[in-house]
């Protein structure tokens, strides 16, 4: 087995090229280490390009190897993308958060990965470079080929960073999860939302819940209920009801289908309300 800590993105791509499909990219590997490891590993965790976290022109760029712990404590993410900070703070345990990365959370393609759920709500896109030197940009929710299967081929493609618009004036986001214990437990349901308001009227809304489908899933019909609405107390039960219409699966180890749908409704309502209140509080330039 070979384990190479790449020194920059180009070198990492070169190693992948040279290994002809034998090597695999890792960034944290907190999930990968539980499986049988491939013969060659290229570690992205220490690269300059993949560990940067910056905002330019209203666009947040998060390196794929930024750990959950650093994202959770980053003032930039906490103020401009609260949902992602909240999601990263709840993943696994302190040990997992210190090692696991945001890019890994996306590429591992688990259906209810907390960071990925927040990223989809925030409208994040992944910047992916392949061994041919081609770079493409794809919405995070488009990167799922099935349950726990990514469209990204980690023997020939690397997520360099994740991009999305930071929450400006009048915008807010939030993330919540419901799990059977307070740490080290997969969520029964998690949900995230991003809301933009103008004069308390909702102008734009993204609501995501999981596990619903293989990818974090937008609940468009629920979003539509809030579009161009000034939410009053009567709207939230309707929002919960609409969100609970979603089709989900039940499992013996987690919970029944019926209860999971109920949780999707409840969390959708709570997360939208929280994001909406934050958006209202951030109106007038305060973020």
């Amino acid at each position: 087995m070979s384990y190479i800590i790449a020194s920059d993105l180009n070198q990492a791509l070169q190693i992948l090229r040279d290994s002809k499909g034998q090597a695999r990219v890792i960034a944290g590997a907190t999930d990968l280490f539980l499986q049988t490891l491939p013969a060659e590993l290229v570690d992205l965790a220490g690269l300059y390009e993949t560990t940067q976290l910056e905002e330019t022109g209203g666009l947040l760029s998060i390196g794929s190897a930024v750990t959950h712990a650093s994202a959770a404590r980053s003032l930039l993410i906490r103020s401009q993308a609260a949902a992602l900070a909240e999601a990263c703070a709840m993943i696994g345990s302190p040990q997992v958060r210190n090692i696991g990365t945001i890019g890994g959370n996306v590429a591992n393609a688990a259906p209810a990965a907390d960071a990925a759920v927040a990223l989809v709500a925030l409208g994040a896109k992944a910047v992916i470079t392949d061994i041919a030197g081609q770079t493409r940009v794809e919405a995070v929710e488009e990167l799922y080929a099935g349950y726990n299967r990514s469209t990204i081929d980690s023997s020939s493609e690397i997520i360099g960073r994740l991009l999305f618009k930071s929450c400006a004036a009048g915008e807010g986001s939030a993330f919540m999860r419901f799990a059977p214990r307070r740490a080290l437990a997969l969520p029964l349901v998690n949900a995230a939302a991003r809301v933009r308001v103008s004069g308390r009227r909702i102008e734009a809304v993204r609501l995501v819940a999981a596990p619903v489908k293989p990818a974090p899933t937008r609940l468009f019909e629920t979003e539509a209920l809030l579009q161009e609405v000034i939410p009053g107390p009567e709207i939230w039960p309707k929002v919960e009801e609409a969100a609970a219409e979603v089709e989900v699966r039940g499992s013996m180890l987690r919970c029944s289908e019926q209860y999971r749908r109920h949780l999707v409704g409840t969390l959708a309502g709570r997360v939208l309300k929280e994001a909406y209140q934050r958006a209202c509080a951030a109106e007038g330039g305060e973020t």
Partner: protein
Amino acid sequence: MWGKKQEQNRSERNISGCGSYQSPEVWAKVTGKAVYGIDLEFPGMLYGKILRSPHPHARIKGIDLSAARAIPGVRAVLSAQDVHCNPYGIVVDDEMPLAVDRVRYIGDEVAVVAAVDQKTAERAMAAIKVEYEPLPAVFNPVGALDEQAPQLHEDFPGNVAWERDLIRGDPDTAFREADLVVEDSFSMPSVHPAYLEPIACVAVSEYGNGVTLHTALQSPDLVRDIISRALNLSSSLVRVIGPVMGGGFGGRVFGNLKLYILSSLLSMHTGFPVKMQLTREEEFTVGRPMIAAEINLKMALRRDGTILARESEIITDNGAYSAQAPWVSKTFSERNDSVYRIPNIKTRARLAYTNKVPTAQYRAYGNQSANFACESLMDQAAKRLNMDPLELRLKNCTQAGDTTVHGLEIKSCALTKCLQRAASEIGWDQRKSGRGYGISSGIHANGSLVANKNFRGASARVTLELDGRVNVFTGEQDYGQGAHAAFACIAGRVLGLEPDQITVYSRDSLVTPFSQGALAMRQTTVGGRAVQVAAQELQKAIIQKASEISGEPVSLENGLLKNASGRLIELTEVATGYHHQTSGLNLVGEGKYVPPASDYDETSYGNISVAYSFAAHAAEVEIDKKTGAITVHRIVAVHDSGHIVNLLTSRGQVYGGVTQGLGMGCYEGYLFEGGRVANSSLADYRIPTALDVPAIDQVFIETEDPEGPFGSKGLGEIVMVPVLGAIGNAVADAAGVPVTALPLTAEKVYQAMSGGECSK
């Protein structure tokens, strides 16, 4: 939480004892230097692996070991045909080391391999060919008792592993004449102690047919007897030496007998030491978790709250082999009857064989899971009577001087005070709205006579060493609960020495006195009393020898020997004097403690134990009404364990036991899918994390028990008894409806609140 408050409690009530002394092993553990079973290595050591049945029930039509035997590095491959063993068991002899012609659960041991390393052993396992003919299986204990059900054991027709029909008093009249009858059904899944270190052992065959087994056990002497019986070895040729134990909680009283017997067989077969260890998955799938139970419970009361009778119909799930399940079922079925003054009892209990993992026990032996049901029914009765649940308990609770319905003679009991204190600490009279409160009482026996009616007590040997230090030899085991520290404190108190001048040895069956071991909460009470008596014997011997040396009467006070003329005599002087005089002997005190007349009749009526510990717990919880999610904010644990010998370890016991009770109450439980354990990892079998543990307030109400050393009683298991009742009742209070199936998950609470059936 631990803190100043308890220090105040201590000084307020003037708790005596030896404070916070810890045995040296504790420091070895926290610095990572302790050697556990899993760390053991011996020269020439082989690794053993077990081939297990993939079928829940099947006939073995043929086994081909030839390919496995041909693999280089493989030293032995054995199936039932290759070994000559006796059937064995703990309560009944229903197991064989390797399946003879039939497998009865997924995981049943079929063949065993020893090889030079783990990988080779695994390859050999994969090369064994077994032909099975699957048989119909039964997984539900109720279904297993049906006449048409597949039969598991010829010797146990109807799949009944154990049963009991018991009547005390006149329950039928009591129910007829009652003002109120309450009734409900409860269910509890199987649970695993989930100790941190999976069971591991190394067997070393000795010249002359013996075997030395290195493994950490709570009851090494009892295990030694079973192994020697199964292997046809003379019992004194089997020696058990214990490394440090990485947690036991009842699960290591007998540990995994299969592993010990098979590693011994492999070692005797090859002549090399053989190491075997369970993976975490094997711990769950082939370990010995505690029985699952279904109970229908009825209680008759007078309008004023007097309890008249209790009736229970119980079915417990034995799994494929019995291990300790009959005894656990018995404790489950009766111990809670003695918490309150209940004059009439009717019990029908049946333990059913199923094609699932065999079962045993977990800290508190079923008493804790039954507490959940019994205490829920107490609250349901209080509600119907429009009575405060605390008042109903205070009205009925057992008192010192009582002989309970099952014949337990209660010599010391502060249950009333425990209940009152638990209520005042939790703020029973100022209960906050939006929160749920629950209270519960528990009793647990100290050193009950389950295993052997004729062996009631304990013995110990205490020696004076040449350097003036003292060694205590005992068969009682320290597995983290602090038995060694307690024994050092007890011997030190007798001899006037500091506990750190005393070393306690307990882990070698060849050297230490025979003992029942760390079960039935007997270590401090029964084992400690033997240490006390032995230390008193040594004290006498020291005084006598010192008088001989100095030619005049000698007194021993506060560790100082003084003769009548006032001269101080060093302990070393006495030790050396005797040593020279006898050409090498040490002064020894041998002590036995045989409890007075504990016995029971054929209906199990009688005073089965030396002493009884009591406790009351109160819980404060909050429920998210929309999701059913429970937050346990606080648990107050008030204990009557008599005199507290060591406050620090006692607090540790309470903290750990309450946490495990919380685990059973809210998180844990086996899930089965067609006989297969569905949650066989610590990711899916969820025990509480540090974040899930609430504030735990600990209060000790000290009684003076006439039997335990310096008036002390056991604490280890009782801690887990009232937690489940307290949490269950607090959840019912917050939800407005009882949830009657463990564990109390958010989904079950939600279903119960919405009137669904999932709570059942």
